[in-house]
């Protein structure tokens, strides 16, 4: 399935603000991270959180093609 991933801050600098990943059905948040790591080619980036449909998700949270998945690098608001 095609999953659209939004990226921000240092992760957007590295991958662009939006990436389409081709993942097997039944994939989880951890699979999204692993897939991006495979593309990272030695770059060091801060460990992110992941949001699914604008809520923080856990590594084992399932991901569907219709979900809005976002990579959330360490936040620095305020």
């Amino acid at each position, binding site marked *: 399935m095609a999953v659209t991933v*939004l990226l*921000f*801050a*240092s992760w957007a*600098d590295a991958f662009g603000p939006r990436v389409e990943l081709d993942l097997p059905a039944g994939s989880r948040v*951890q699979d999204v*991270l*692993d897939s*991006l*790591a495979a593309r*990272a080619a030695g*770059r*060091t*980036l*801060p*460990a*992110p959180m992941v*949001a699914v449909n*604008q*809520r*923080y998700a856990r590594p084992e949270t399932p991901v569907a093609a219709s979900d809005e998945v*976002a990579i*959330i*690098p*360490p*936040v*620095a*608001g*305020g």
Partner: protein
Amino acid sequence: MRSAIVDHVLDPTALLAEVASADSGASTLFVGTVRRVNDGREVLGIDYSAYTPMAESELAAVVAEAAERFGTAHVVVEHRLGTLALGEASIVIAVSHARRASAMGAQKYVIEQVKARVPIWKREHYADGTREWVDPTRATPAGTPVAGLP
């Protein structure tokens, strides 16, 4: 209560007026501003960006939690995005409450939660011409990435 992610100059006085109530004995205002020095480097300005729809919903959740935990509906927060100059305000938090301890507690709750979970990022511009995303989880000096991909 109210919260907003905005792209205009913040007005602390207006937010203070917004929480005013004859049932409150204490009003507090917190203003976060761009400061000249961070981690020993001279800062000229900061770009703030966000995952805006989620930042709006997380900020609204933080305000609702503060209102519930501290028992006041008088909680208003605005966070600004865009390029801010030295001394400009990035966030204003206004709270009023019958009791001062609760007003101060709600204020602290809001700023701590914003910094922990609202998806907003800042990129500092330094006097040496470089720019860098601020990573509060990194204990080492700026410029030395330590966390690899998962």
